[in-house]
């Protein structure tokens, strides 16, 4: 009987087009959309080459330090600027057409003209400041060296050498910086983790559907099963097992798709990834069971409720904007502690980003607690076998 019911539950679930769309096709479509939208986003946040213009003038030609500094900054593989040397009118036109971030005018002073505030403008300003402070440093060093030479009584000063030494000293990169940040910093991964979380929770649609078919007060087929000589618990477990299998099948396909086509990185610990998927799906399953048993309304409304819960959970765990998860995590951590979508997302995040497993284990345990509490509550609803009205 157990396998008889299991077999037919599988058949029913796989044949149900709407369910298969939500649990199987929709996550893959969404994954493709994410890939389209976010594939470039992290690259475009890296520092790009900034287009600027310099207005040609005598002052600029005479200012050797600036001239050389900008020449240095605009060549090589890791150049910072693309520079157009032009006259004032053309520079203004370029700025107006948004072709350049800003332009430099050298008269007695150095002037930067930009169209608005922004990161590129700030960098431009910063570089100009840096060069001018280098200029100051060089002058200080030269003055000092000359004074030293004079003190030594050496009046035959080699200005060229002093300048060259000072310039070399100032422009040599001596700062020792050691980057100790984690290499796995790709935050768009969170998007895909919420996608997995969504699929896990959409599994609730399957369990809800199959449990509904076993409830006499929901469904005429449920009446028929209620009068059959089969122990209810056994029947429910067998049906839920079937929905779990369907759910895991969908999830496996999504994993394969995201790993091999979309190149999503889930970290390296395959057994733990599978554990999280299993536990996350179980949480989704339990969510479906509770909606099926405790909320008495028609099936369409139940589907709506389940989809709304899932989407809200995913929204709070960063599906529509990754910062949302961080905002919730830091300001109202309680919300994400009872949000299964966030627990699943956070579990993958922990596997991807953290080297220790504390956080991952916490997530797994929370998910299990969540599921069992939900199942327990539903159990009291399911235990009822006679109804007041049908």
């Amino acid at each position, binding site marked *: 009987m157990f396998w008889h019911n299991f077999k037919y539950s599988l058949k029913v679930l796989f044949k149900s087009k709407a369910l298969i769309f939500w649990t199987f096709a929709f996550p893959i479509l969404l994954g493709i959309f994410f890939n389209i939208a976010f594939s470039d986003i992290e690259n475009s946040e890296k520092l790009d080459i900034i287009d600027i213009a310099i207005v040609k003038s005598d002052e600029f030609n005479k200012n050797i330090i600036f001239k050389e500094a900008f020449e240095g900054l605009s060549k090589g593989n890791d150049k910072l600027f693309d520079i157009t040397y032009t006259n004032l009118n053309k520079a203004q036109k370029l700025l107006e057409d948004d072709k350049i971030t800003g332009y430099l005018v050298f008269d007695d002073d150095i002037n930067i003209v930009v169209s608005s505030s922004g*990161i590129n403008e700030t960098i431009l300003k910063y570089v100009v400041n840096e060069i001018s402070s280098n200029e100051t440093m060089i002058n200080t060093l030269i003055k000092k060296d000359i004074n030293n030479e004079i003190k030594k009584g050496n009046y035959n000063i080699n200005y060229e050498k002093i300048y060259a030494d000072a310039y070399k000293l*100032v422009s040599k990169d001596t700062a*020792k910086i050691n980057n100790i940040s984690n290499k796995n910093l790709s935050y768009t991964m969170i998007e895909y983790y919420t996608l997995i979380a969504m699929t896990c929770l959409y599994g609730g649609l399957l369990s809800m559907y199959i449990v509904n078919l076993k409830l006499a007060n929901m469904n005429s087929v449920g009446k028929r099963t209620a009068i059959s000589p089969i122990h209810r618990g056994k029947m429910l477990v067998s049906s839920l097992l079937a929905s779990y299998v369907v759910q895991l099948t969908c999830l496996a396909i999504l994993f394969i798709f995201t790993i091999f086509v979309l190149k999503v990185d889930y970290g390296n610990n395959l057994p733990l990834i599978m554990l999280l998927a299993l536990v996350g799906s179980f949480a989704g399953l339990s969510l479906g069971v509770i909606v099926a048993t405790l909320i008495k309304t028609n099936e369409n409304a139940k589907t709506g409720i389940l989809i709304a819960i899932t989407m809200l959970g995913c929204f709070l765990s960063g599906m529509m904007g990754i910062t949302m998860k*961080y905002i919730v995590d830091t300001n109202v951590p309680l919300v994400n502690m009872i949000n299964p979508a966030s627990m699943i997302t956070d579990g993958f995040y922990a596997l991807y980003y953290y080297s220790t497993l504390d956080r991952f284990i916490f997530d797994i345990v929370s998910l299990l607690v969540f599921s069992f509490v939900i199942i327990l509550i539903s159990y009291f609803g399911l235990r009822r076998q006679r109804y007041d009205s049908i």
Partner: protein
Amino acid sequence: MTVFKAFLKVLLKYKGTIILYSMILIIFGAINMSTSDNNVNFEDSKPDVLIVNSDKGNKISDNLVKYISDNSNINNDLKGENEINDALFYRNINYVIYIPKGYGNDIMSGKNPEIDIKSTGDYQASLAEMILKRYIQMQNVYKMNESSEDEFIKLINNNLSKDVNIEVTSKLDTTKLFNASTYFSFASYSIMAVIIFIVCLVLSSFKEKNVNKRTIVSSMNYKKYNNGLLLASFGYSFILWVFFIILGIIMLGDIMFKSRGLVYMLNSFVFTFCCLTIALFISTLVTNKNAVNGIVNVVSLGSSFLCGAFVPAAWLPNSVLTFAHILPTYWYINSNDLLKTMEVIDFTSLQPIFINMLVVLGFSILFIILNNIVSKYKHNAI
């Protein structure tokens, strides 16, 4: 009037959906606004930096901290390495600087100690690194010549105090315009989803096989009946548009009452109309409510992702944007982006926006024609 009333009654059954999508728009808008402040004068973009100073009390280390603090937004609320790591991952901070113990003394004794950092690798982090490197570089140059700590610090600070002249040509309040464009671009998702979803669901109730049969045999003129449905759908879309505009005014403020704001409104109205024609077309194509649910999500999320409603279009790959030209949302969002940086609003400068609107209207006409073809075909098939 009978048709209109019935339409409204069915519509009210789906008010939950309308509220849901409006809430998403409001939350999204509110999050964007929360960072808003007025700036017409030049303001440095400051990276978010966290400093872990293990050498507190030393003048040299403290001066480094002070300099970094002046040039960045310092975030020192975070406790423990885990919180720092989380903040870094979610780009709440861009750069972390760990000043080792004894750093100041090491500098004075002529060493060049290494500094640990954590970085997100984006341009803000690059800027933070420029700031840090500039300071260290200066330290390394000056320390060779100074023996007194105070002199040394004075020298550095003197040098750093000089600031270059910067002139901003644009008189636009970029933050406000940025918010407005973001709001309206994101609204494309809400408008599209709500209109297609509701119109399709409500019309599917009217087009349900038996209800439709009953209408056809009734004494009501079928053309009149259809026109009633069209009018009701249009009325609903119009009210929804007004609602989103009011939301926009509440969130964006006075900008909506200027000529630029009017263009934003007009643009969104044209787009709303286009969404309505799409909705009518889909409702003719499919009447199964389950299928409507799936199609709405795919169509609205798809065009939002492809055209830059969620992620700025400038950050999308070029191939995607080229493809997006076949979707009306692209032209709508393009107008919003143009409005964001447009210096003057006059007839000539608005020309590209009018062209975009014409394209969106063209799409609408296309959908109306398609709708007629499909409904004729279906009518013959009964």
